């Protein structure tokens, strides 16, 4: 997953810069696979179909020069007693002047639209799920198919879920109608959740994802030392391997504290064929207040090592076979502080509504790069620029109705 949201186009010869910047959210698209997995029912607990509900979300991400916002609407409805269908509509409105954009291109705007359909089928203690997602923006099309099975066993203390996703994507390049590259994605997931005591539940998740095809961002470039350039360096196009395999394993737990509140903790280990390794730690506290309110507080720490072919500044042109200067491929940490509130209304139900919630969540994320430099600072020797860092604010505002 080389191309990133908020990522930067690079000045490739013969390519219109304003247009090229559009692909900024190639990464967002590819993530559709992950989204789909979640949407199509692997979230459901075994042996009971989820209740009918509708969720309307407004989301906004703002930071590092990028603004991404839009709505998401999810409707889940039972048909007959053993089938539940979901439909999701999701939009990203992107307007970006991120560090990559301001140093190598011009700010741009674009939109991505995604539609998903999913079906869950319940039989005894098993839920079978299938799903399809289509995501479109002007230089990237993603079609994603998913299959899942979730099973309650051992006296319903254990739920095992298996998921498989196949993604068939087409990467384009604005301003270059001859450019069209396919990528394929295969995603295998196994999740086991286990009730340990009356107050403790844990879940272990394993996920392997393989990609093949054109995996870098067609607009992005790396820089290398070039004494003939006035600023001391020049750019060349990125070159990524054509395959990638990543593995991750996560263990999470939730503990019910006396007097009704919950503590959650999690750890994820990630490693992949490009050499990136990462640790993620999560902590959360959920506190109800009165009958109608739930407050949530969370902290997340993410620490990543670089891809083996990453460099902020290569020594010369074509310095190695594979070249990357995506900040997402570099070495960095992210720290998130989050707070949320849920308000329950209509608990007695009115008309067709059984109950509803109004929710708000704010997350503040700090990104600190260890070997990605801020090229908007000029007048220093190449490689002497300050390290890049920025903060983002993520807002989620949503209404949920059960009917």
């Amino acid at each position, binding site marked *: 997953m080389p191309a990133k949201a908020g990522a930067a186009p690079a000045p490739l010869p013969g390519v219109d810069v304003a247009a090229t910047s559009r692909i900024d959210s190639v990464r967002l698209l590819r993530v559709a696979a992950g989204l789909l997995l979640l949407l199509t029912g692997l979230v459901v607990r075994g042996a*009971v179909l989820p209740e009918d509900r509708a969720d309307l979300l407004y989301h906004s991400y703002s930071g590092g020069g990028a603004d991404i916002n839009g709505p998401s609407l999810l409707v889940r409805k039972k048909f007959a*007693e*053993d089938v539940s269908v979901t439909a999701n509509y999701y939009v990203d409105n992107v307007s970006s002047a991120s560090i990559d954009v301001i140093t190598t291109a011009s700010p741009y705007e674009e939109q991505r639209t995604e539609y998903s359909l999913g079906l869950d089928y319940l039989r005894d*203690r098993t839920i079978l799920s299938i799903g399809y997602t289509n995501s479109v923006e002007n230089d990237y099309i993603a079609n994603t198919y998913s299959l899942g*099975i979730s*099973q309650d066993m051992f*006296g319903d203390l254990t739920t*095992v879920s298996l998921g498989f996703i196949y993604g068939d994507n087409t990467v384009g390049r604005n301003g270059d109608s001859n450019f069209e590259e396919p990528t394929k994605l295969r995603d*295998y997931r*196994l999740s086991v959740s286990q009730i340990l005591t009356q107050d403790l539940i844990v879940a272990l998740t394993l996920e392997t994802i393989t990609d093949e095809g054109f995996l870098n961002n067609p607009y992005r470039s790396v820089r290398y030392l070039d004494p003939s350039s006035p600023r001391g360096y020049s750019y060349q196009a990125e070159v990524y391997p054509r395959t990638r395999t990543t593995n991750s394993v996560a263990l999470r737990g939730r503990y019910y504290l006396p007097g009704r509140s919950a503590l959650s903790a999690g750890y994820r280990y990630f490693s992949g064929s490009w050499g990136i390794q990462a640790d993620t730690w999560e902590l959360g506290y959920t506190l109800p207040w009165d009958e109608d309110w739930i407050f949530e507080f969370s902290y997340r720490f993410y620490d990543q090592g670089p891809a083996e072919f990453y460099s902020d500044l290569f020594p010369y042109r074509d310095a190695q076979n594979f070249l990357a200067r995506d900040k997402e491929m570099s070495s960095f940490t992210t720290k998130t502080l989050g707070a949320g509130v849920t308000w329950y209304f209509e608990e007695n139900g009115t008309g067709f509504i059984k109950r509803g919630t109004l929710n708000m969540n704010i997350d503040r994320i700090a990104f600190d790069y260890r070997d990605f430099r801020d090229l908007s600072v000029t007048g220093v020797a190449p490689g002497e620029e300050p390290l890049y860092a920025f903060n983002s604010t993520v807002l989620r505002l949503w209404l949920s109705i059960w009917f």
Partner: protein
Amino acid sequence: MLKKTHWMLTLLTALMLAVAPLQAKEANGPAPDFTLKSRDGGNVKLSELAGNVVMVNFWASWCAPCRVEMPKLNQLYNKYKDLGFVLLGVNVEEQQKPPLNFLQKRPVDFPILWDNRNEVSKKYKVIAMPTTVLVDRSGNIRYIHQGYKEGDEKKYRKIIKKLLRE
């Protein structure tokens, strides 16, 4: 890659095989007797209801299928109560406040009994929530139903009618 697929397939097969039928089963043998406090303050003893068809429903206010089932049970109760049918809603919760709150919002007419210490739930080997047990006029368990799905009340009705005719 191949290895992973292999593992996944194996697990998938295993899961398919693991699908054990839940649902209902015909049962036999005398219903274990119990005495529980009821919502009205009195005691209810199962053996004293002999001569009636008794439905014992184990439920909790935190259990989503139970919440859906309660109004349906109430309809059954009101339809057959004058024909020698008794319904006992055995609440399995430690605290009485959550179920009382629920019953205030969704009132039912049949007796609610408190099994706060889960002694009766244990005796009846409740392995799903809700669990519904039907006892015939002579005090024998004739039917045990685990869980609740929309439409299950039709199955209950069929068996209640049959037992009432005996």
